[in-house]
């Protein structure tokens, strides 16, 4: 059972200090006590609104930033304790594709240099670098003529494909995709998503797919975690999440989602009432973080934090509605 787990995250926390007044120090609790597992070969979706900490979560898992507390085990090893060669090996195996293709590619490097930077750093033995890069470019639908061009000569969709080729160059096992299509038009988005799915089939990649767009996450993921203010409120398979959402926040997200079919949207009469805006992640609300906007909030929710429980098989939720004290 535990063999097919690639990544295990335990009680992960990341606080960013902010100084409000001279003496007081507050923290943005971007990720606050998150526990989950990612299985080998699956796509694990993370969905949440802006400021929910989903990007920070992706970065901490790759150790691009150091955590405040908690552990992340990659193939059984604690990545925050890795050093030297082992750390380098982890860096090769775990890659990231960033949200904004306009700022994730160095404008002063050619595509050839951008893609070769990783393999050179990791000392990979490549006989013919040019052929190697061309073969990668072909995989993402670009050609040899693009080899010595600069990033500004490409459209947003092409840049994102270059970023994907760069991630592929190191032969990784795990890729964090942080909103890879949110800067792109829908027709281009479809192309990138299909490409990512094809690569997963071909190379058996494990993905962590981060997005604010629930329809895209649903399309890409096997399992989905819903995050709210730095905490996971619900984890289950993507079909189950849409058919039987448990957490009030998930239900609200689903009912707020515009469905591209007028026949369905006009029939949908009962809408979950959505009130208020997400509170600040600096000093977030006590108890359940969602109680300020929750239509079912009970007195207990205001002071006691709910725990993650397995309410139905493989369907985890953190809400007092589903937990007995």
């Amino acid at each position: 059972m535990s063999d097919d787990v690639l990544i295990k995250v335990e009680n992960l926390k990341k606080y960013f200090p902010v100084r409000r007044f001279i003496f007081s120090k507050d923290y943005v609790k971007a990720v606050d006590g998150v526990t989950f597992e990612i299985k080998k070969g699956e796509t694990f979706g993370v969905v949440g609104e802006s400021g929910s900490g989903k990007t920070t979560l992706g970065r901490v898992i790759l150790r691009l930033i150091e955590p405040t507390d908690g552990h992340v085990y990659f193939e059984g090893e604690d990545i925050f304790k890795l050093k030297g060669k082992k750390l380098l090996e982890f860096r090769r195996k775990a890659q990231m594709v960033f949200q904004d293709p306009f700022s994730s590619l160095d404008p002063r490097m050619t595509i050839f240099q951008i893609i070769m930077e990783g393999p050179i750093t990791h000392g990979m033995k490549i006989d013919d670098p040019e052929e190697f890069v061309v073969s990668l470019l072909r995989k993402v639908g670009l050609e040899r003529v693009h080899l010595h061009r600069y990033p500004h000569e490409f459209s947003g969709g092409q840049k994102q494909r270059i970023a994907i080729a760069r991630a592929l160059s190191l032969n990784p096992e795990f890729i964090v995709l942080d909103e890879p299509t949110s800067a792109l038009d829908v027709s281009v988005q479809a192309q990138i998503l299909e490409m990512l799915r094809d690569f997963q089939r071909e190379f058996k990649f494990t993905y962590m797919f981060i997005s604010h767009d629930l329809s895209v996450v649903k399309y890409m993921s096997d399992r989905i975690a819903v995050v709210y203010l730095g905490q996971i409120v619900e984890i289950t398979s993507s079909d189950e999440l849409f058919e039987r959402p448990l957490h009030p926040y998930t239900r609200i997200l689903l009912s707020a989602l515009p469905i591209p079919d007028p026949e369905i949207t006009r029939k949908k009469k009962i809408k979950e009432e959505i009130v208020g805006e997400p509170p600040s992640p600096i000093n977030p609300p006590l108890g359940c973080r969602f109680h300020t906007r929750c239509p079912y909030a009970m007195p207990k929710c205001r002071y006691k934090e709910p725990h993650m429980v397995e309410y139905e098989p493989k369907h985890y939720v953190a809400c007092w509605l589903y937990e007995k004290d």
Partner: protein
Amino acid sequence: MSEEVDKILEVKNLDVRFYTYAGVVKAISNVSFYVKRGEVFCLVGETGCGKTVASRAMTRLISAPGKIEKGEVIYYRDGEKINLLELPEEELNKIRGFEIAYIFQDPSASLDPLYTTGYQVVESIVAHNDMSMKEAWKKAIDMLRLVLIPDPEARVKNYPHEMSGGMKQRIVISIALSNNPKVIIADEPTTNVDVTIQAQLLDLLRKLREKYGTTVILITHNMGVVAEMADRVAVMYAGKIIEVASVFEIFKNPAHPYTKGLLKAVPNPLIKIEKLVHIPGTVPNLVFPPPGCRFHTRCPYAKDICKAKEPPKVEINKEHYVYCWLYAEKEKKKEIVVKEAKS
């Protein structure tokens, strides 16, 4: 044909160009459509298709290097016909913001950071009404209450930076509504906000429209928003309108290959999709737009005529128009229907 369509705005052969160093960008060419009184009319398309330019040109909100080359924008006011493109600036100023109001995409760019939000609402009220400042402030507070801002008495004293994105967009909506306009042109009003806030804002727009009977022109790239809000939809591609129909027709019975492609590229979370289909190729450069149909470079059905001649406007059925050679001949049309039925 005896039924008279109750139009409130009509755009005829509108042409806008931008004179840049890279060349003349033909942002929109020969765009024609009309908007019915009281409806929600959606202009939908991808980045750079000209939907924002079209909406701004309607009240001449195009500044250099842009220029409205030709066309007419007819505003029907109580039986009166006014061409907004020929109206003197002072006259237009009376209509703009009063009878035709705008909501822009980025609320932090449309609010002045140096003035309180309340003052900015007051400003738009006083500009068009004979009202004392005191009365206007009172009305401003009412407007903020109308757009569901909690504690409006205190919020009018806030500056834009003290508010969240959703709140700021509510302020912008209240400014647009403050003079009870006949038409609201909303340009991607919910693009920068989260889905829960988007649902709140769309809900608000819907309720206000029902209450005041305002006509709404909604510009968006999000097909989900279109499905939820629109009565009629115009799809734009590379500076041209390519299809106009009711929202049900567009989603159920799209005619233009681009509209079909667009709908297949959008993931619908309620349906099991095996594969998303993307549209191959890229959007053409509008300095040198392709001759003939502008979509022919990416169209799977492109024929020789598409490359040579601009497609005519074809009526599929009542109020469903498409600009495509596939439908230009009746015989051809039947052929396609048969083919699609087979596949």
